[in-house]
């Protein structure tokens, strides 16, 4: 990758693509910017342009008990789902990386399925299961059903990050450790774990970001529990609540940008192989996010 590739595109094409790229970036980011600006709207009306700027609704949001309890529910759900996903996702990654067995290729496809099928299918499936589970084993809609649902589609995020790292980790490291007399546990603790720690952290952050924002499946698994996205969804039509919704919305955007930014940096930390990583990582992350 260090060799500069020959440029074959005519100048006009390069220029055209640059313009399209710029326009698409604007298309992607202007709406997010608009929400940030609206959070400082002093009035309840949504009319543009804003009559002025004010931070009064930030204070109102901070004092809103419903928002606070929704935030706590979302944090609990995110932490619960992330913990389960970290455990199950890394176990699956180790199994797939280390062993060759029948049906190996099918497993990663199977793990992606909850994200690749339309969200409403996953949501309806879990909803039917909880309803039937309610009659058979007394299952009811609660924080736990939210966590179970979220964990199911977060597993693949951790799995993808860990397996990408394992594939890049040289096998000779493990062999060297064994040759120097370390047993399996010591090799895991002192060689493998330090190697995959940032991948685990990145996978965990992305899983958390995914769970924290989820609404499509959550609506079908949460019953009367209110998460932060669910609170936004229930309140964004109420003119009285608009200012608070705007503040919550911009905070939610920030709350997802930060972990994702960190995760992106973590998965591209080694400068030597930065180019190679830039190739492999995003496609995997894209799949995980579907």
């Amino acid at each position, binding site marked *: 990758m260090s060799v500069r590739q020959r440029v074959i595109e*005519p100048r006009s094409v390069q220029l055209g693509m640059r313009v399209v790229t710029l326009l698409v970036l604007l298309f992607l980011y202007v709406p997010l910017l608009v929400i940030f600006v609206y959070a400082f709207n002093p009035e309840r009306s949504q009319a543009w342009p804003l009559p002025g700027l004010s931070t009064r609704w930030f204070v109102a949001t901070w004092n809103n008990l419903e928002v606070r309890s929704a935030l706590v529910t979302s944090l609990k759900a995110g932490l619960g789902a992330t913990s389960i996903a970290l455990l199950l996702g890394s176990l699956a990654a180790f199994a797939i990386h280390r062993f060759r067995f029948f049906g190996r290729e099918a497993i990663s496809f199977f793990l992606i399925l909850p994200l690749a099928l339309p969200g*409403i299918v996953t949501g309806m499936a879990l909803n039917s299961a909880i309803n039937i589970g309610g009659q058979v084993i007394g299952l009811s809609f609660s924080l736990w059903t939210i966590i179970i649902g979220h964990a199911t589609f977060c597993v693949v995020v951790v799995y993808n990050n860990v397996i990408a790292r394992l594939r890049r980790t040289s096998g000779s490291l493990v062999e060297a450790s064994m040759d120097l007399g370390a047993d399996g546990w010591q090799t895991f603790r002192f060689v493998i774990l330090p190697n995959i720690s940032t991948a685990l952290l990145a996978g965990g952050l992305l899983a958390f970001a995914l769970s924290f924002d989820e609404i499509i499946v959550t609506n079908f698994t949460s019953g009367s529990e209110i998460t932060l996205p669910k609170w936004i969804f229930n309140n964004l039509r109420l003119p009285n609540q608009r200012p608070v919704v705007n503040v919550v919305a911009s905070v939610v*955007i920030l709350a997802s940008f930060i972990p994702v930014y960190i995760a992106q940096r973590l998965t591209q930390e080694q400068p030597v192989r930065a180019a190679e990583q830039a190739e492999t990582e995003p496609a995997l992350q894209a799949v995980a*996010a579907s």
Partner: protein
Amino acid sequence: MSTVFRRAGIFLYRFPGLRLALLLAPPLAWMVVVYLLALAFLFLTAFWRQDPVTSAIIQAWGFQNFQALWAVDVYRTIALRTAGMALAVTVTDVILAIPIAYYAARIASPRVRTFLLLSMVLPLWSSYLVRVYAWRVILSSDGLLNWSLHKLHLGSVNLGFSNWSLWIVFCYLWLPYVLLPIFAALQRIPNSLIEASTDLGARWFTTLRRVILPVALPGIVAGSIFAFSLTLGDYIAPNLVGDTEFIGNVIYQSVGIANNIPFAAAYAIVPAVIVAIYLLVARQLKAFEAL
């Protein structure tokens, strides 16, 4: 403590099958119990019915939900409209994504490429609901769009809320999902391939048409899976910026308002089947290797 680990380690070392089973059992059990079982229950529920008087669910087998889906015009129209929207969004997003992915992968300097990559990844993970909501604010009659159009003396188009606004919002929502696999596919193309084409006298457009796009096709199809599947199963965006019904809305209302879960389950099988067909075609085009 460490001797326990050591002994367990030695024991496991002798039996690799057991090691594999211990690693694989928890994630596999979770996915089978939670997800496959749930899908099975969805399928099962679709054959039950709701008592029209008490609106309780009757657990008796029958095809009445599927008959209703087929016989009632409205449901067929909605299914077709949803599939049409999904196709339109997929095509638009692919057309928008190719130039920017191409620019990022093959023209931009490494530094700009890193920046562009981050710019594509960030919206993908940021709150989907807030991104729909932002458009609801922009498209409203006294919102930013109409104000800008007024300032440009273009009059006001009353876009919000219609199928047009929904189309824009869907394209906006899923664009990053389409961009990333196409970017990855374009970046994986070996330079030697393109140089060979140029050396053999092909101009850029010929190289693009005959070499670059065919090689990147699996990535393009992989990206299109997301746009298609995510549009097909969405109910939030039609709810917030649309004015007509889509499969997702009908399912959501059947669960939330009518509490007719058997019917909702039956209708949820429709997008599942459409996506399954799409995935089969995609597999033929080797898209899974590009995922």
